[in-house]
């Protein structure tokens, strides 16, 4: 397994995480405590809840593909991640 840290982009900002980190962890590191990942239908802020791919609260855009579960996706080099505003 490659143990080199991984550099990726969250909302345009560079972030470096350990190999094996999830995209969810990269977002938390980039945006800080209590950061919102997405807006719900009625506009309320949401962040991961179940941490294991069940609740879909952590959906973000990854490399242009919408609605990807950040908790189930490994952070990979040069990935571009966007959360809802």
């Amino acid at each position: 397994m490659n143990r080199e840290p991984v550099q990726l982009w969250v909302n345009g900002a560079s972030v470096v995480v350990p190999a094996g980190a999830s995209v969810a962890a990269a977002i938390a590191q980039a945006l800080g405590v209590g950061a919102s990942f997405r807006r719900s239908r009625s506009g309320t802020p949401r962040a991961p809840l179940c941490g294991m791919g069940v609740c879909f609260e952590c959906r973000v855009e990854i490399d242009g593909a919408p609605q990807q579960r950040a908790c189930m996706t490994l952070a990979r080099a040069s990935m571009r991640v966007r959360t809802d505003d």
Partner: protein
Amino acid sequence: MTESYDVVVCGAGPAGLAAASAAAAGVGARVALIDANAHAGGQVWRHDVRRDGARRSRAAFGSAVSWYAESQVVAATADELLIERPRGATRLRYRKLVLATGARELLLPFPGWTLPGVYGAGGLQSLVKQSWPIAGQRVVVAGSGPLLLAAAALLRRHGAHVVGIHEQVSARRLRDFGWGLARWPKTAWTAVALRTKLAGVPYRCSEFVRAAVGDERLRAVELETPAGLRRIDCDYLAIGYGLVPNVELAEVLGCRLVAGPGRHARVAVDDWQETSIANVLAAGEICGIGGAATASVEGRIAGLTAIGSRREAAALQARQRHARRFAAHVAAAFQLDPRIHGLAEPDTLICRCEDVPFGALAAFATSEGWDGRAAKLATRCGMGACQGRICGAAIVELGFRAPTATAPPLFPTRLSSLTEPFATTSM
């Protein structure tokens, strides 16, 4: 693309790993193991990115097993699974299928539970193991069951400030539970070791979270305690009320489900881990919450049965029954205080995907209970991305009937994956 196997195992947690390894020991058996995650181990043996480093995972399986990582089952028939992978869909044909799809956390609605900062206790554990930054953060751990101790210990190991652990069960009940553990000395020892690691962290009984407070994120929790309402400032709430079997795939395959202990469905199996469907077996949490030790032995029985090694499987049945008795002991001890079922207020969201408030569902209560189907059609409760996995379990726990049965696709799916069954085999 279609691949054919003698045995396909769904889920690479303790049950699935044991099943795949046992089946692969059979002469010439072609075995596949699939999991939605990038690494094997399931939730309980999830690799800890920061702490485990290059340490070899416990999640081992022989080289004879074909490993399908990041593979999500979206549909299933009597001899085939349709799985979605990062680079497209694949069909897996099977002679025997072993379901080891595990469990998810039971998450119950209370005012403020949708705020960023509120996490499942197991969920936060899983996030932190994958490098979620938690050092220095104030975390309240609450809910019920042995999982709370494990979560608190892991969070602390990663530098979190665990403000307190709040168990809804009474101290007396917990003491009785502890004495009962004498029948399972290894487990009792684990509990003592966990408690030692948590020295200095307040552990309070008969307390539960009534509300999460904050604007755009969590700022504090309100606890119901024997001494009245108490407010604690915190950055994180890790909350869990136990586990619920992931029976959706079994349900789509037509396996007989039963309820209990508690209200949630589990897969009915015989002494050989066979379900009501001839070539489908099931092991571990989906047969009822039982923990990793139960899952391992059941997985092994299922794997051996799948390749026809019944004599070897029979030798494990006594151990399986012993493990299940422990599970029953846990389930009986951590029954929920009925007040926890009544925390949702009319404006508390039940369905987090479609933002359906509890009050909107109340209109569908009838004299015979609750009309789940009508409620779903009128409010869209359970029709969002999670397909009712969170609100469905919550609704059942609150004493209502589940909105509706599971139907494929089992997860939100790319359209191209659904056209895979119609693709020519040369593709």
